[in-house]
């Protein structure tokens, strides 16, 4: 202790003691103490004894502390057994200072947390032959110190017996000198009593003299008492090394300090701890209730050998683990295991016993195991136990074995074990083996020292003169460096790295040392990195760059980034790549300077780095670069960075810059910002785009409007309508149309656009509105179109007419038909005809085939006829097919007819393959044109390939139910089973497979297929099917097949014989999806497996 500390602690001590005397204990109370304390020592001290009484509280502070300080002072003074010095300063716990004392008394101290060296000093003190005394709360310290808790023999976990009650105590050892004052009489006392729980309260390690008496009803029924509290110790003693501990739980209440028998009890305890009073402190054997069980199990274990069933071992293992719950059982089982180990059993049994001793063994096992270390056949198994036994004795016997055995193999195992146990006293001995020419020994020594890994181990390694495995020594030094750096001593670590770096010739080792140096020698790290990157040592170059990409030291990264200028271009590129890789994301400002560098490689590297480390600060520079740069590669790098830079702040900055005044004149910059914002899917972009549509730059307006096409949503309907009114253009029209397609419900848009139209007075806007309205449909708009068509304004009338030709509904079908015949000019008639054809295709109903044939008949001009024939390709019905065949040789529209025939035939092939096949064959045999013949052959191929498959299906959307699995979904009826839901034409591959993903891709789903089979006769056919996963099939509303499975698709895996009635037969299929593939196929077969005859399919 230095002088200043001594003075301070003395000052504290004086204040403390005076506070005790002045403020706490009254003169009356002191008088009672003097009266109660014995006049003579229990035994005359061998010499003058000195007690260090420690009174510090970190946690709860007992008010009885000054009472005990006073009482013990008086006790020492009155009996002459010892003198007392007080302290509340943790630094008194040093080897040097403690030398002067014979005993330490912890006076109700709480939550003490000594440093490692203070812990050592306390342990050294008692082990060397001195004493420790604990009063009451002395068992409420050392929570973070395992050996400390064991030392005191208990740790506070609660006190069911509170200071408000009076509790019963029994003298466990009435004949023991330390309990003499109680005269063998059990007693009752008002005090607070701590619970004593294993493992720290351990009757195999301490001798209990006084206990709580739970046969007393009040004591037994105190609140919170649990069964295991039956053994609650009050006073115990134990030997620790050559020293002694005395602890007594009594002393919470003040009156205990003038209780005569208890004070005498304490005096005897203190004199025992000091070493003047010799008493029996051996640990009495407590019989375990489970020894019979242990013997029985071990008798079975003894029969074991390598080739026997291990069942008895497994049973014993569980028993051993169970015994750990009770120290007495644990001690018993350890003893029994040792008996077996010491008997004549085979090596397999010994091996097993040693593994159990690794779990339950204590210092008791050490001597027997030590004896096994020197025999080659038992050395390893003894080490398995020794390595895990928590006792300092182990280190000693291992060390002895190392010195005494001649067997190299045993030596190498023992060396490794000393390392695993981190026994630092063995370092000097292990060091000798570093220079051994036996590789196994040398490597074991290296291994042990690298596991110990402290400064002493590193020094030993550094001094080695290895003959073999030289690089392993360096490698171990690097491992020590890591460990030492981890403990905080970077300076020492750095010295180790530096030596290894200089001495090793191996690149891998040098690289490791270099990286270690950078991490530990901060002052030189940037210079080292610079040197390595610019140097010509490739290994170090790699190491430097890799380190830079991983190092967590931000200031180092910034230093390197700040000196980028001084590096070569190649190095600049590497460093910037490393900065980009480093997760610290620093160096943006420094890197930003290099986007103007004269080397393009450097510029691109800067952009690539900014993509990762850039923030708001880089946005405008990157946008400017992206706008200005001509070179594609570099431009892409800049724009990629603008797109990739992480963070919402970047999003917001981009939005801000799009509409910033500063960018008003820079249209290309604004456009790149808009593009980036669209790609980044920035939230709130639409609002900014609407603002941008007011830009004075036409190109910006166009970019903004085009972007709105992707970004605008339902919430933007009003603004979009206004935009169309304000800036009518093809782009705006398209943007609004695309938005309309995205809307689930168009009603609001239709109402708004109709209302807004009424207040328009700009002709161009009106024309734009009409164009959009024509694509939207809706009753309100139909009224407007009719009205405007009747208008006297020629331009309006024309716009309304054009809108009507595109109308999605059937409202104007009659108008179109009549205008197609009687329109005022050819242009009008053609437009009307086109509109009419579209309308009958979409709304023509079942007889639309007839309608288009009629249209052909009313067409006058060749141009019109050609248009009708061309349109027929989309009208897949038998009458149209027949009409086209009959008219295919008319030279005026031969080309159109041929294309249409093939298109119709392709669709009909799936519905009525027999008819189509026949017709196609006729075409091939005729003098038809080459194109139609080629088409006909393709259709025939298709039909042949199709075989018996049904390929004309309607498919539903996919359905799922909250968390429901595939097999459950099979039995859950969704909308289509109730004749609801929407349908679309299914896409069927050439091999008849329907990929159900077209409904929706995903897991745990269901979708449906339906079609109609028209049979010209009553007949029986076979449905041959395959499904991935399960399927359920209905024919005319009856289930004809069901298979709830999870599997892949196999064609024809399932078959169902069904009866088709003459006429329409409705086929309805449900397919479930677990995960992965999802598909279905169905063939309709007659008895020989070929396609059933006399049927047509029509999913319409």
């Amino acid at each position, binding site marked *: 202790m230095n002088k200043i500390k001594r003075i301070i602690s003395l000052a504290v001590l004086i204040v403390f003691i005076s506070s005790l005397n002045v403020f706490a204990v009254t003169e009356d109370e002191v008088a009672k103490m003097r009266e109660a304390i014995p006049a003579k020592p229990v035994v005359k001290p061998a010499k003058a004894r000195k007690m260090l009484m420690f009174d510090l509280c970190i946690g709860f502070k007992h008010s009885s502390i000054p009472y005990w300080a006073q009482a013990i002072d008086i006790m020492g003074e009155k009996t002459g057994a010892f003198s007392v010095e007080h302290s509340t300063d943790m630094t008194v716990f040093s080897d040097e200072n403690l030398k002067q004392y014979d005993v330490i008394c912890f006076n109700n101290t709480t939550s003490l947390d000594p440093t490692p060296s203070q812990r050592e000093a306390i342990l050294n003190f008692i082990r060397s032959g001195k004493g420790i005394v604990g009063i009451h709360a002395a068992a409420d310290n050392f929570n973070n110190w395992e050996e400390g808790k064991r030392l005191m023999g208990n740790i506070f976990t609660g006190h069911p017996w509170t200071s408000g009650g009076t509790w019963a105590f029994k003298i466990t050892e009435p004949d023991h000198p330390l309990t003499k004052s109680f005269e063998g009489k059990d007693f009752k006392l008002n005090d607070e009593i701590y619970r004593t729980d294993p493992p720290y309260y351990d009757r195999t390690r301490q001798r209990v003299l006084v206990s709580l008496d739970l046969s007393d009803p009040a004591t037994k029924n105190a609140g919170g008492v649990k069964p295991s509290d039956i053994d609650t110790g009050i006073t115990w003693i134990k030997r620790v090394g050559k020293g002694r501990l005395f602890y007594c739980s009594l002393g919470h209440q003040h009156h205990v300090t003038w209780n005569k028998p208890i004070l005498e009890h304490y005096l005897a305890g203190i004199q025992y701890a000091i070493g003047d009073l010799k008493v029996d402190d051996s640990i009495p054997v407590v019989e375990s209730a489970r020894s019979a069980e242990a013997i029985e199990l071990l008798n079975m274990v003894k029969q074991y050998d390598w080739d026997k069933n291990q069942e008895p071992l497994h049973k014993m293992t569980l028993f051993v683990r169970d015994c750990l719950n009770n120290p007495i059982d644990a001690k018993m089982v350890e003893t029994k295991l040792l008996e077996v180990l010491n008997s004549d059993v085979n090596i397999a049994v010994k091996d097993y016993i040693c593994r159990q001793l690794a779990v339950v063994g204590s210092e008791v096992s050490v001597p027997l195991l030590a004896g096994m270390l020197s025999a080659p056949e038992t050395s390893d198994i003894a080490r*398995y136990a020794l390595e895990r036994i928590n006792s300092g004795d182990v280190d000693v016997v291992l060390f002895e074995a190392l010195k005494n055995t001649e067997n190299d193999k045993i030596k190498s195992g023992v060396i490794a074990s000393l390392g695993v146990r981190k026994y630092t006293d063995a370092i000097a001995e292990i060091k000798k083996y570093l220079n051994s020419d036996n590789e*196994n020994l040398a490597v074991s020594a290296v291994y042990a020292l690298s596991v110990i890994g402290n400064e002493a181990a590193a020094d030993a390694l550094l001094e080695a003169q290895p003959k073999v495995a030289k690089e392993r020594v360096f*490698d171990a030094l690097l491992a020590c460096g890591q460990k030492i750096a981890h403990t905080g001593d970077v300076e020492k670590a750095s010295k180790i790295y530096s030596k290894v770096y200089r001495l090793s010739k191996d690149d891998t080792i040098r690289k490791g040392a270099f990286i270690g140096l950078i991490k530990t020698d901060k002052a030189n790290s940037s210079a080292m990195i610079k040197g390595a990157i610019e140097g*010509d*040592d490739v290994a170090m170059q790699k190491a430097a760059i890799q380190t830079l990409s*991983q190092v967590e030291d931000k200031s180092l990264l910034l230093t390197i980034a700040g000196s980028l200028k001084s590096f070569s271009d190649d190095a600049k590129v*590497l460093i910037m790549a490393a900065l980009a890789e480093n997760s610290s994301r620093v160096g943006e400002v420094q890197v930003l300077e290099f986007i103007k560098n004269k080397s393009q490689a450097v510029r691109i590297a800067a952009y690539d780095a900014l993509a990762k480390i850039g923030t708001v600060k880089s946005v405008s520079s990157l946008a400017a670069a992206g706008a200005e740069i001509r070179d594609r590669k570099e431009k892409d790098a800049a724009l990629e960075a603008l797109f990739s830079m992480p963070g919402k702040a970047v*999003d917001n900055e981009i939005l801000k810059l799009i509409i910033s005044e500063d960018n008003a004149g820079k249209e290309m910059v604004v456009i790149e910002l808009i593009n980036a914002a669209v790609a980044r899917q920035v939230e709130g972009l639409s609002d900014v785009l609407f603002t941008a549509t007011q830009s004075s730059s036409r190109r910006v307006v166009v970019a903004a409007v085009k972007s709105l096409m992707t970004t605008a949503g339902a919430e933007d309907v009003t603004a979009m309508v206004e935009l169309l009114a304000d800036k009518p253009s093809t782009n705006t029209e398209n943007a609004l149309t695309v938005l309309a397609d995205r809307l689930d419900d168009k009603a609001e848009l239709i109402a708004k656009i109709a209302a807004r139209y009424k207040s328009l007075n700009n002709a161009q806007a009106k024309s734009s509105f009409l164009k959009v309205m024509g694509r939207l449909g809706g009753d309100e708009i139909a009224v407007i179109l009719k009205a405007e068509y009747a208008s006297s304004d020629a331009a309006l009338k024309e716009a309304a007419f054009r809108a009507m030709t595109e109308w999605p509904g059937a409202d104007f079908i009659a108008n179109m038909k009549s205008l197609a015949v009687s329109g005022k000019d050819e242009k009008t008639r053609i437009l009307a005809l086109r509109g009419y054809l579209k309308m009958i295709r979409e709304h023509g109903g079942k007889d639309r085939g007839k309608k288009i044939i009629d249209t052909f008949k009313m067409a006058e001009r060749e141009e019109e006829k050609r248009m009708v024939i061309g349109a027929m390709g989309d009208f897949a019905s038998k009458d149209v097919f027949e009409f086209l065949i009959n008219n295919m040789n008319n030279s005026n529209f031969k080309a159109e007819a041929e294309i249409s025939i093939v298109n119709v035939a392709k669709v009909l092939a799936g519905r009525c393959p027999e008819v189509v096949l026949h017709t196609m064959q006729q075409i091939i045999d005729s003098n038809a044109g080459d194109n139609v013949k080629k088409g006909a052959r393709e259709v025939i191929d298709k039909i042949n390939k199709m075989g018996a498959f049904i390929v004309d299906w309607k498919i539903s959307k996919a359905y799922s139910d*909250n968390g429901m699995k595939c097999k459950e979904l099979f039995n859950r009826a969704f909308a289509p089973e109730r004749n609801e839901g929407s349908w679309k034409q299914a896409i069927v591959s050439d091999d008849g497979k329907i990929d159900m993903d077209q409904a929706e891709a995903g897991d745990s789903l269901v979708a449906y297929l339906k079609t109609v089979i028209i049979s010209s006769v009553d007949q029986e056919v076979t449905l041959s099917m395959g499904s991935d996963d399960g399927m359920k099939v209905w024919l005319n509303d009856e289930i004809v097949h069901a298979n709830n499975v999870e599997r892949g698709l196999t064609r024809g895996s399932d078959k169902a014989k069904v009866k088709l009635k003459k006429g329409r037969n409705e086929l309805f299929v449900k397919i479930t999806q677990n*995960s992965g593939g999802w598909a279905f196929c169905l063939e309709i077969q007659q008895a020989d497996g070929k396609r059933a005859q006399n049927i047509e399919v029509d999913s319409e």
Partner: protein
Amino acid sequence: MSEKKLNRRSFIKKASAVSAVAGLPFIIPSSVLGKDGAVSPSNRITIAQIGCGGMGTGNMNSFLNLNNNALQFISVCDVAKNHAANAKKSIDNKYGNSSCRIYGDFREMLEKEDLNCVSHALPDHWHAPVALACARKGIDMYGEKPFARSIKEGRAMCNAITQNNLIWQTGSWQRSVAHFHKGAELVINGRIGKVEYVEVGLPNGDAGGGPQVCLEPAPSGFDWDMWLGPAPYRPAQNFNGKLRKDGGNGPHWDWRWILDYSGGQMTDWAGHHIDIAHWGLGLERTGPVEIEGKGKYATGGIYDVPFAYDFNCKYANGVTMRVANAAALTHGMGACWYGEKGWIHVSRGGLNASDPKILKEKIGPGETLLYKSYNHHENFIDCVKTRKETIAPSEVAHRSISVGLLGEIAMQTGRKLKWDPAKEVFVGDAGANSMLMRQYRSGWGI
């Protein structure tokens, strides 16, 4: 343009930008180093397979099937001669020559061959000794999960890999599968709100009990002593009769049920589903602070791993993880995160959520984008070239298996354990701390 395409584009661009950097190739075979650090124009990556059983040849074939001309298998190593011979045959067939060399002792191979990287697939007790030997040679590694058989071995491996700046990829390939990635990414971006509880379902350890012992001399062509390596001695043992049946192949697969070599299904699969659970929680580089659980162990035959297990881990941020047999959990196998707003469950069967809408949500550029890999083996080779961290690096793999190993110790001691994830020691439990390292036979160290 979909989100996925955008990211993919960035990914490719980034990868090529780094590897194409400035005429300083990152791959330099050590054979051409030497005089003044001159660099050979060769960009060949040499690789060897150590452990040529089912998993080993599987990995080897995955590497061969990358059809990467720069990647060259030059040797194989196995203690079973026929395994090594079969592996050589596959490699020679692929390359159309007969130059692949065979070894029975990996140490000899590491001495003689000039290797850039190694792929190893070995019984768990072998992971640390082989990995450390490779690390000392500066060799990058693709290694199987579980990362190590004990926590101290795992830490030593991580330290050596860091010390030598090596690339390590763990065979936790689920990370490179889209739906696992997506599940973890949704969770880490708060799509189910704050997560306070996770369930991890692992396979039932069906091998409990196990067959009778068949003891017989090790067949010729199988180096039993080397197979044991650092593990405690036991005479040649015919696990499940397989040594005989396939003509001396070795104790394939069934070593999995013996504690000297493995922790059973629990530690095997910890490297998969706990790994994924950590990924979604952003806890992949730390560990729990408290572990408590129960296990049931095999009671007959030669097996002694736990076949039933159920343990809870608490993390410093309050998250609790329950790891148990799949059969005991609502969602079975996989990781299931429970958040304030719902749950997400991911397994090999797919990705599910309390509300399917959660799964359709996008992760924007400003959010946490988890590392994306499309092919686990290719990701390793890419990283060997670019020196970037892989998708399943050592520290992450170590922390994943640590949870399984901590559970194992908690079950064996039957105590509630307090763990310090920074120092990697139990707080105040010397008995448990002694179990952080396995005991080695003399002559073996790491």
